[in-house]
């Protein structure tokens, strides 16, 4: 029972996540789940967990954690700058995408993600966190999930399961896809927008703004002209939908999106490019490339091979 990390600094947006909580969207509960599925699964693979095991997701700056308990095997995935601070004060520069041993009294200081947004922290055997409706994902807005549905805060204790020892260190060769082209399919209301605006959206540059979080990514670029109706009858929303409110600036709906919405949608990000998208930091210029379903399904086959 005494195996835990003490949170000395929580980080900006540190929450437990897994692959999502499904089957409840008709009651207003969005799936949530990790933002970058490949990085999330990598963090579990590095410590020999099943890939769906709950991990700690952090954004930009991660937590500073002090280890209390038996030796453990942990890993940090993504592109992350962090230090392992040994009990004797020695500072070891951490390597993301490699598992490492941590002992009683050591600290992990997750300083920042590098040219990316999200990173993941996993431990062999898993964290001791409560599953709610089949998932340990956290939806902060509705206070659903472990840690009473909250982000980590200072002095929290993160318990982990007592696990047998392992020394199987692993490493994954990993880098983010650096290109800034995001493939999309036509949205349900693409015809609400003028022909020129459709051409603009599928060819011009859009900037990721600071108004971006787990719910959505606001973009800034050529204003899109709606020639039909600025509202639609509210309908169910899918992750990756790109809606355009009255001001003509698109918003991409991300993992914690509202379950229904009343703005027309010009496009949908394809599954294979979602991880790449969510790792784009504010200020990044992205372009959207229109593809059809067959291309998207083929791209998905390539994407799953990375897992």
């Amino acid at each position, binding site marked *: 029972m005494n195996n835990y990390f003490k949170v000395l600094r929580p980080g900006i947006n540190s929450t437990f996540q897994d692959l*999502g909580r*499904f*089957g*409840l*969207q*008709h*009651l*207003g*509960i969005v*799936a949530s789940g990790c933002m970058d599925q490949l990085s999330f699964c990598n963090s579990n693979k590095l410590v020999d967990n099943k890939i769906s095991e709950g991990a700690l997701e952090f954004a930009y700056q991660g937590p500073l954690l002090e280890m209390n308990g038996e030796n453990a095997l942990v890993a940090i995935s993504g592109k992350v700058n962090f230090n392992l601070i040994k009990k004797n004060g020695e500072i070891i520069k951490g390597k993301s995408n490699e598992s490492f041993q941590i002992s009683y009294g050591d600290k992990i200081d997750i300083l920042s993600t590098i040219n990316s947004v999200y990173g993941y922290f996993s431990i062999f055997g898993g964290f001791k966190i409560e599953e*709610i*409706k089949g998932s340990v994902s956290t939806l902060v*807005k*509705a*206070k*659903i999930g472990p840690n009473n*549905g909250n982000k980590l805060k200072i002095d929290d204790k993160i318990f982990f399961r007592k696990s047998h020892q392992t020394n199987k260190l692993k490493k994954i060769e990993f880098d983010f896809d650096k290109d800034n082209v995001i493939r*999309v*399919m036509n*949205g*349900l209301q693409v015809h609400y927008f003028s022909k020129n605006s459709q051409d603009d959206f599928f060819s011009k540059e859009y900037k990721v703004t600071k108004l971006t979080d787990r719910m959505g990514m606001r973009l800034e670029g050529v204003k899109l002209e709606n020639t039909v109706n600025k509202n639609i*009858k*509210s*309908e*169910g*929303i*899918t*992750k*990756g*939908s790109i809606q355009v409110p009255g001001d003509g600036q698109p918003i991409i709906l991300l993992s914690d999106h*509202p*379950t*229904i*919405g009343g703005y027309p949608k010009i496009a*949908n*990000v*394809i*599954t294979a490019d979602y991880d790449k998208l969510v790792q784009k930091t504010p200020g990044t210029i992205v372009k959207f490339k229109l593809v059809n*379903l067959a291309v*998207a*399904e083929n791209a*998905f086959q390539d994407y*799953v091979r990375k897992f």
Partner: protein
Amino acid sequence: MLKKISNIGDCGITCDFGDEVNKNTNKEVIKLFNFIQDSVNKSKIKGILNYTPSYNKLIINFELGQIKSNEIIEFIKSSDYSKINLPEKNKIVEIPICYDEEFALDIKRLEQKTKLNFKEIVSKHLDTNFFVYMIGFVPGQPFLGDLSESLYHDRLDTPRIRINKGSVGIVEKFCTIYTFESPGGWNIIGRTPFELFNINKTNTSILSPGDTVKFKSISKKEFTLFKNE
């Protein structure tokens, strides 16, 4: 009638029942929703992650590695779901509401706009058997209809920054109950102490799409003393 099925990205489809927002259209949506839910529960179809009914559409999300959109579309088209009699799940739920002026923030404006007095507004609200069109936006929030035409009113020009949990609001022919404290632009006519949503209960959301809601007026004292059973 199901008019059209289209893809939403590579892992979603929408089943479109036409442009009308009325109970008959919505009942068709809910029939398909019930069928899909039942098929998922009985493992008759794999890979379905979520199914979200709204006024006139059902959106289905699936796991691309498990199933493809054409298989789901085929499954729906080949089934005679509208003729399948699933056990009647939809229920009538009585929800207490207190119209005390502390809670009924917009009733004065409604009186002016509708030319009805407070009592008339309340009795029209209480007389309505509300149909649950859909649930969502945030967890557990129901969209109910249809309000008496004499109460139709637009959204607030400037939405409130904070609306208390339990507030009951109306806009056009719809009525909603805020299940979380949130911003909002609906005309608030009362508040319920009834907890519609609790993630820790087996029955997470008291209401489901297709249910019927009947409001029951309670005093402020009853409001204070009220406890969900």
